[in-house]
Every structure is written in structure tokens, then in C-alpha cells.
């Protein structure tokens, strides 16, 4: 393994909870190049030959294995676009932990755009965790623009957990999914923006097969002068169930735009959208203050609970 510095190791802990080399398959990318990689008997990771990125192939029937693919950037001015493809074999059941940490102490922007494509064969199940984290005191921005494309065959399922709590100045997240019969997509997004950060999250999910379902839930907090947009579209093209939910707290001068988009193209498509945006209720603060917390402590408890 290529030697990582202290900052890179700290970023790895933040985005992938990695304290040492992970078990199972992994690929650690640091400042634009692979720093460490391991394949296993069932999971093969190889570099792409035509562009930056990797192909991860998981054999059919692989169970209880994990893949870690964290990315860390500590070089101001570095901008990269990386193409990662995941081929998940029939009836495999795996955990994939992605995540990107940027530490930018310089004055030039640092940017990582990860283009992830997932191909789930029938019956495959993936739990996917993606954390974003930024740090560093430079004037250069920390920018992340992930694109995730899901092609889900019959009865496959994917649970996605997306977390961005701190330090990313600008992010444009795009997630597109196409689901065949019986396929199931669950997304849980947790987001907090500070200062003048901007975060846009766009989902376009097509439920094309009978019995397919999607459940997209975003919980977010916009503080200071930050801005967020949650734009979730579900197309019901077959007898299916779709649900989107945007539940947000605004503080200070934070702004949030929630854009519901439901299109039912089949009489048996059942689609629901919920959105609630508001500040912390005064009664909630008072209740916790009657339990002995200060107003600031009460606020912290409410937000921590909300984003848990």
C-alpha cells in the first residue's frame, strides 16, 4: 500500500470509517491515483483502460462480502472525473462503501466527480453507503458531483445511504434508476449545509416492471446562507409503488427548494410525495430547555436526532 499521510488517513476515517486496511475487496484512491487495491475470490477490481476508474465484478451468489472504494483528495487544484462500474451477479448480497473526503488548504478548487454505474442482475442485493466530507481552511472550494446510474433487473434490490454533513462547498448529486419487475430501491439521504454551501440532489427513477418500488427519503438541514434543492421524480410505468419524502429544517438564512415530481403512466401505479420544510419548533426547544439544556444544546440535540 502506498504511504498515506495523516490528513489522508483522517479523511479515510471520516468517509469510510476505515482505521486500517479493510477486510474484503477494496480500492483506495488518493490524489488521482490508486493507493491500494485488493480483490478477493468473488470480487474482482480492475482498472479501466480507456479512462480513469475501475470495474468491480461481483460473482453470482457472493454473500456477506464488502467492497470499500474511498477517495481522498488533499491537493488543491486537483480536478478529476472517475468512472466506476459495478457488475453485481445474480443473487449476490454485498455491502459497498464509497465516499469522498476532500481537504483543501489551498486557494484553488478541488473537485471529484464520481460517475458510478451499477448493474444488478436478477435477485442481487446491494447496500451502498456513500459519505461526503470536506475540511481545510483554504479559499479553494471543495466540490463533489456524483452521478449514480442504476440498472436493476428482476427482483434485485438496492439500499442507498447518502451522507453529507460537513465541509463540502458545492455538490450536484444525480441519481438515475431503472427498475424491472419486483426490483426495489430504497434511498436515505442525510444532508447538512453551512455557510454559503450549495447542494443539489436530483433523482429520476423509472419504475418499469410490475411490483417494482422506490422509497426516496431525504432529511436535511440548511444553516447560515446555504442553499439546497431536492428534486425527486418517480415515473410509474407499471403497477408499482413510489414514495418520495423531503423533510427539512431551515436555520439562519438557509434556503431549500423541494420539487416533487410524480408521473403515473399506469393506472395501477401508486405514487406519493411528502415534503415538509420549516424551522425548529419553539416548543421543541422549550421542552428540552425544561430538561436543563441551554437553547444551543437543545438545538444540537434536535438536529443530531433529526439527521441520525
Amino acid at each position, binding site marked *: 500500500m502506498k504511504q498515506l499521510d495523516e490528513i489522508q488517513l483522517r479523511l479515510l476515517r471520516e468517509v469510510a470509517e476505515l482505521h486500517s486496511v479493510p477486510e474484503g475487496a477494496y480500492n483506495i484512491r488518493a490524489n488521482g491515483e490508486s493507493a491500494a487495491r485488493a480483490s478477493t475470490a468473488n470480487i474482482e477490481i480492475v482498472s479501466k483502460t480507456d479512462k480513469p476508474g475501475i470495474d468491480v465484478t461481483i460473482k453470482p451468489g457472493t454473500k456477506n462480502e464488502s467492497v470499500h472504494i474511498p477517495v481522498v483528495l488533499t491537493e488543491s487544484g486537483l480536478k478529476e472525473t472517475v468512472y466506476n462500474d459495478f457488475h453485481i451477479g445474480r443473487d449476490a448480497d454485498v455491502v459497498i462503501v464509497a465516499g469522498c473526503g476532500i481537504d483543501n488548504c489551498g486557494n484553488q478548487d478541488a473537485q471529484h466527480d464520481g460517475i458510478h454505474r451499477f448493474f444488478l442482475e436478477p435477485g442481487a442485493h446491494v447496500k451502498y453507503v456513500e459519505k461526503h466530507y470536506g475540511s481545510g481552511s483554504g479559499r479553494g472550494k471543495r466540490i463533489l458531483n456524483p452521478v449514480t446510474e442504476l440498472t436493476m433487473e428482476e427482483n434485485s434490490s438496492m439500499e442507498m445511504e447518502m451522507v453529507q454533513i460537513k465541509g463540502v462547498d458545492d455538490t450536484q448529486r444525480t441519481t438515475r434508476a431503472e427498475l424491472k419487475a419486483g426490483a426495489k430501491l430504497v434511498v436515505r439521504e442525510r444532508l447538512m449545509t453551512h455557510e454559503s454551501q450549495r447542494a443539489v440532489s436530483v433523482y429520476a427513477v423509472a419504475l418499469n416492471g410490475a411490483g417494482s418500488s422506490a422509497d426516496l427519503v431525504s*432529511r436535511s438541514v440548511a444553516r447560515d446562507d446555504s442553499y439546497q434543492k431536492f428534486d425527486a421524480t418517480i415515473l410509474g410505468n407499471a403497477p408499482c409503488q413510489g414514495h418520495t419524502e423531503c423533510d427539512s429544517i431551515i436555520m439562519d438564512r438557509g434556503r431549500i427548494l423541494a420539487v416533487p415530481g410524480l408521473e403515473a403512466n399506469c393506472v395501477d401505479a401508486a405514487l406519493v410525495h411528502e415534503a415538509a420544510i420549516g424551522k425548529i419548533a419553539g416548543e421543541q426547544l422549550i421542552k*428540552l430547555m*425544561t*430538561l*436543563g439544556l441551554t437553547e444551543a444544546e437543545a438545538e444540537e440535540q434536535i438536529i443530531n436526532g433529526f439527521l441520525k
Partner: protein
Amino acid sequence: MLELQHLSFQVNDPAGEKEIVRDVNLTIPDRELVVITGPNGGGKSTLARLIAGVETPTGGSIRFNGEDITRASVTDRARAGIAYAFQQPVRFKGLRVLDLLRIAAGRKLDISAACEYLSAVGLCAKDYIDREVNASLSGGELKRIEIATVLARGAKLSIFDEPEAGIDLWSFQNLIQVFENLRRNIRDSAILIISHQERILAVADRIIVIQEGRVLRQGSRDEILPTLIGTASAVRACRQADQGGAQ
């Protein structure tokens, strides 16, 4: 000991100034369970909110264990030992019952200690400890959790604003037991309950009747309760319940 001296609270609404609490003088000594009753809209809940610091009085003073807390914040009053159970408990997305009990206790309660507080209010602890305090809980469940958080505080003065509101009959029996137990273990603390339930009034050491923002009368339970029977200030939950519970 809590002392209210010439306490007043006025609000300005479109109809002009309205006096909700008028020159109230009261003492709640330690080792007493006091019930405040009186007709609806008489200022009882406002008085509780003034004591907890949620509202600020427009006149008079509040002293708690010898210290003037009239201008003290909600937090400072809580830290001085005042606990307050809301009439309409608040819901929190994401905070679990266990989180709320831990905040209330001011320490990292272990699960079994937290469960004891829930059992005391008649909730099967293991079903509730990890539940979020959100809209999935019924009004009655929420109310009992609210009371459990006040029990967890172990405060010098515990205020309960209409603890029976929204609670079903079976739980009401349980609630009476909660207050009887609190009364038995009162030691150097005091309990103030706002209620017009006859069964709760029957647990009181002392009863205070508030009407139109003033103290109409106060005295021992034996002195006051007989004068209230059959009025809006002492309401029966249910005859069957009063005779020992549902059959």
C-alpha cells in the same frame, strides 16, 4: 419551597389588555403535593408556565428555595430543580424515548434504569425505549412518556399540567398510582399538579382553587374537596373507575 408574590400576567390582544393571572400569592412548601383546580380558562396553565419560565410575568416575583427566579431562564430554572410536564407534549423526529429520558436524567441512564421510568407510567418498556418520540405515538402514549421524563428528572419541584388529559381510563388508574407513589417518596421535594379530576384532588395535601386569574380559596384537601364535589373544579373520570377500575 416555591413562593409566588403578587404575581401577575397580562397579554395584549386585539380586544385590549387582558389580565390572565392577577396578584397571585401562593406558597408551595416542600413535602407537599398541591393540586391547583378551578374552571377552564381561569389561568391555571398560565401559572404553571410562569413558574417553569416559559412565560415571563408582567408583575410580582417568584422565589424558589429562597432565590429570586422571576427573570431566570427556562434552563436556569430547570437546573435549579424545577421540572415541568407539558399539557400537550411535544413530538421530535429522530429523538428516541431513551434519548429524552437520558437528557431528562442529565446522565447516561442505562437501559434498565430508563425502563423503570417507563414501567412506572404503565408502558411496556422494551416496546418503547427505542421508539422515536414522533407522530407514530398516540396522544396517550406521548403523555405518559412526558410524565416519565419528569420522573427521570428527580426534581425538587415537579409540575404536571393536566396529566390526565388525553389518557385513557386504564392508564388513568395507573396515573393515580404514579402520583400516590410520588407522594409517598416526596422527602425534600414538592409536587404541583394542575387538574380538576376528583381522584387526583383526593391525593392532594392541599388544594388551591383559581378562578379568573385569582386565588379563590385554598386549604387542606379535607377542607376544600367537599366544597368542590359536583362542580367543574372536581370532575369524575368515570363512576366505574372511581369504584376501583374497569371490570
